């Protein structure tokens, strides 16, 4: 059987699609509340830092960012094709490259907290 990297990217897409479907609307609602100054005590440096300093918090943040990033990257590749761009290999390198970079800096920032 020919080797293919499709299962990896498709697996991340499916897992990410499920996690973003469950988690992202509520997450965006929180950042929207923070942006609208809904409650000035809720999005403070101390509370967010305490969450990100704990290993479980780090794991949750990494999981959410990793999966939503690779979900969106894979779907973006398809969407670009649907808008008429047929340079699929180049598009794949660009979107997966950006997702890989995002994953790398997320690890770096998490380790610094």
């Amino acid at each position, binding site marked *: 059987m020919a080797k293919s990297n499709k299962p990896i990217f498709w697996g991340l897409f499916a897992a990410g699609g*499920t996690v973003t*479907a469950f988690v992202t609307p509520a997450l965006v609602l929180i950042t929207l509340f923070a942006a609208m100054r809904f409650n000035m005590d809720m999005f403070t*440096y101390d509370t*967010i*830092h305490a969450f990100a300093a704990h290993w479980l918090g780090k794991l949750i943040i990494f999981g959410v960012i990793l999966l939503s990033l690779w979900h969106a990257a894979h779907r973006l590749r398809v969407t670009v094709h649907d808008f008429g761009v047929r340079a699929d290999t180049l598009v794949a390198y660009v979107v997966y490259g950006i997702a890989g970079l995002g994953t790398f*800096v*997320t690890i770096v920032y998490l380790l610094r907290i």
Partner: protein
Amino acid sequence: MSRKPYIREISKTRWFLRQPRYMRYMAREVTCIFIFAYTFLLIVALARLSQGPDAFQEFLNALRSPLGVLFNLAVLIAAVYHSMSWFNVTPQAMPIQQGEEFVPGSIIVGAHYGAWAVISLIILFLGV
């Protein structure tokens, strides 16, 4: 080559405008642009968090601009559309068989919406 090659007269860039179901498909696919952008907002937040309280305060001030509110509002609409389109196809994506019968799609979809509500309430309870 045949002398009269068949050429489909369909635009590569505007094909989805022809039918409502293609439009819904594209709306679903386009949600990924907002999810992608929002993930980078989270990464920027993480970067500023790792740089200390002053840097994080600067991030918060930028988030509280009209553009920040508008961006979050747009992402919220896209994210909810993504969730609904994702859950609505779960009976096709993972049909569950019980004996001879398949579990009705409405039960599978309903279970996902229920879990979505519970998870959202937990996140909002912890975050707000």
